[in-house]
């Protein structure tokens, strides 16, 4: 290992090692920076993130400031890229669910639903009615949880810390329900191609009804805590302005678009899973700013509660997986004395009664089912906007390509349009009002 010290730059010395050239940056060379005076004394480039509590996960912003005014906002993403799209190409269609659920970790059930609807469209099958109703039920519960986190982090970033503690406390109620239904608080892998992993457990309906009884008062508390508060209003009003034209040009959907006045909600305009039969409103605002987005999300929590109630009322007994044994996941789970495991009835059936069932179990679990060749694009309305699945099959047991149009990814492009020309404090409000989830953005 040669260690030739380079004396030219005393603040960034370098020497050669067997691993290549190594630089030691010590800083302290501000007075030697050339050409800085051309930009004026007021210009300051601030790097915010990627590890900054108010940038919603690992989001990095590079802000050009003139005094406190932002003249340029650049967004750097990719810190949470995990190659989920590529990974799905090396797993079966069923295993894909467990990958996509981890993308947007605040709305995992939307990822699963969008993916499964796309696979079902490729297969040409439709989940049974009960499965569809339960999908709507858990998705709307998930929307409440996701919006509560949006409001909680919004509060935290604006300095209303009680908003955060309340939001996370209320969200915990939903997560308890989702844990009871799916077995996990997050990353459920509950919605599967063809239906659901399992039916609602006993007692779940009662617990959801208890939650529905409690929640309206909690939403009212939120309004008491934040909505009328003058500081909260003055922090949010006129911050992060983006009108309908800007939203559509930049592809921004979801609450941000609806807060600009366009009632564009895929549950209404392109209904799926029977959303056209549910009675709910699409809340809008006409302020185009962070304040409107806050109000829209609050109102959407109430609408989701209405949908959950209707879904509970229309639950009919029935199967939660397609009848087709070539597609339906064969294993049946049950709660044994030692925790979750394969149902003994199912084991008895495949081991003692039906050779066909054993073959299907073995084949479907090891190699999975085949999906006819073709491509589809299926959008669903996630809490953050249009979540689109572009899924391509070559006819095999694995996806040829899964592309996710994640609303966080697309919406974050609006950061510059929302922030430039405003104060640096409003950048935080603008980004918080977009409610980006970096797991979904970077995938």
């Amino acid at each position, binding site marked *: 290992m040669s260690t030739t010290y380079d004396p030219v730059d005393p603040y960034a010395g370098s020497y050669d090692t067997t691993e290549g050239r190594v630089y030691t940056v010590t800083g302290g060379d501000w007075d030697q920076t050339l050409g800085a005076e051309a930009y004026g004394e007021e210009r300051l480039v601030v790097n915010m993130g990627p590890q900054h509590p108010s940038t919603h996960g690992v989001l990095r912003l590079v802000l050009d400031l003139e005094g406190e005014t932002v003249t340029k906002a650049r967004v750097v993403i990719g810190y949470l890229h995990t190659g989920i799209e590529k990974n799905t190409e090396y797993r079966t269609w069923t295993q894909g669910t467990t990958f996509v659920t981890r993308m947007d970790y605040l709305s995992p059930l939307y990822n699963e639903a969008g993916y499964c609807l796309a696979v079902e469209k490729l297969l040409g099958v439709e989940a049974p009615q009960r499965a569809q109703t339960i999908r709507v039920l858990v998705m709307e519960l998930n929307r409440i949880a996701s919006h509560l986190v949006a409001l909680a982090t919004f509060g935290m970033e604006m300095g209303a810390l009680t908003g955060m503690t309340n939001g996370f406390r209320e969200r915990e109620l939903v997560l308890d329900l989702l844990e009871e239904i799916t077995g996990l608080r997050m990353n459920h892998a509950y919605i599967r191609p063809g239906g659901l992993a399992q039916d609602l457990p006993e007692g779940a309906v009662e617990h959801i009804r208890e939650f529905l009884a409690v929640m309206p008062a909690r939403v009212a508390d939120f309004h008491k805590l934040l909505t009328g508060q003058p500081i909260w209003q003055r922090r949010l009003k006129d911050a992060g302005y983006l009108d309908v034209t800007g939203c559509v040009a930049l*592809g921004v959907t979801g609450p941000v678009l609806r807060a600009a006045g366009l009632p564009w909600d895929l549950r209404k305009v392109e209904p799926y899973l029977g959303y056209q039969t549910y009675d709910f409103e699409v809340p809008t605002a006409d302020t185009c700013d962070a304040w409107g987005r806050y109000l829209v999300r609050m109102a959407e929590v109430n609408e989701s509660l209405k949908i959950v109630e209707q879904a509970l009322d229309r639950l009919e007994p029935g199967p939660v997986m397609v009848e087709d044994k070539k597609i339906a996941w064969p294993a049946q789970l049950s709660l044994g004395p030692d925790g979750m495991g394969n149902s003994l009835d199912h084991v008895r059936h495949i081991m003692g009664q039906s050779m066909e069932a054993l073959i299907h179990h073995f084949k479907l679990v090891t190699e999975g089912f085949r999906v006819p060749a*073709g*491509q589809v694009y299926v959008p669903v309305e996630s809490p953050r906007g249009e979540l689109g699945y572009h899924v391509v099959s070559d006819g095999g047991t694995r996806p040829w390509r899964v592309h996710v149009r994640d609303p966080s990814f*697309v919406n974050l492009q609006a950061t510059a349009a929302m922030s430039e020309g405003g104060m640096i404090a409003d950048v935080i409000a603008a980004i918080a009002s977009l409610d980006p989830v970096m797991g979904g953005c970077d995938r």
Partner: protein
Amino acid sequence: MTGPGDRSGSDAARGVTAPGGGFRKGAFGVTGSGDTSGFGGLVRVEPGGAVALHSTERPYGGYFDEVTDALVEAVGQATYDAAVHRVLVDRGEITYFVAREHLLPLVQALRDDEALRFELCSSVSGVDYEDSGGPAATPGRPRLHVVYHLTSMTYRRRIRLEVAVTAEDPHVPSVTGVYPTADWQERETWDMFGVVFDGHPALTRILMPDDWDGHPQRKDYPLGGVPVEYHDATIPPPDTRRSYR
């Protein structure tokens, strides 16, 4: 474009055709011996053949005819014929296969024409139809596809545009001038597939680090996994596992 003679009509309607054969039948890939598992009617295409090469005949059904007529009227029959070399209707979705030279006038008309009004570019993504063997892997075959999903909020319609280029000449004009939202999505497609979008304001990597080599979502990108030992068994890396083709 010859498919095997036993191709059933319903498969053709679904768009399951591939050049020069490359078919397999049966749900579990069993041939010859008795396929006890059933689902023997399923026809699948060999890797790389996921794109049907035939064109759907008019009428397309639904609003697809209206959109196509309006598009022809907006850009003129001659331009349309030159730009769109194939139209495929599959599973209730329409795909226009567009020559890259004509992409920009086409999307401009799709966004601005009163009868079309595709204001929102929902998604831009890439698909690599590369294959290691078979007729699909012919050198110079346009294996990289850029797929645009356009949404008309006025008429509540969706269409898909697809542009295919070769890996040797992966240039596609950027649509960011028409749809600013395509900015990051084109950067992602460059990052992942190496498609160069000419005219993009800043075509840099977005998800991978700036100094990354290669384009990870291409099918020939090496995964570089290592075998993992677990409970006395060795599990090979994903790309070398048995794949049940």
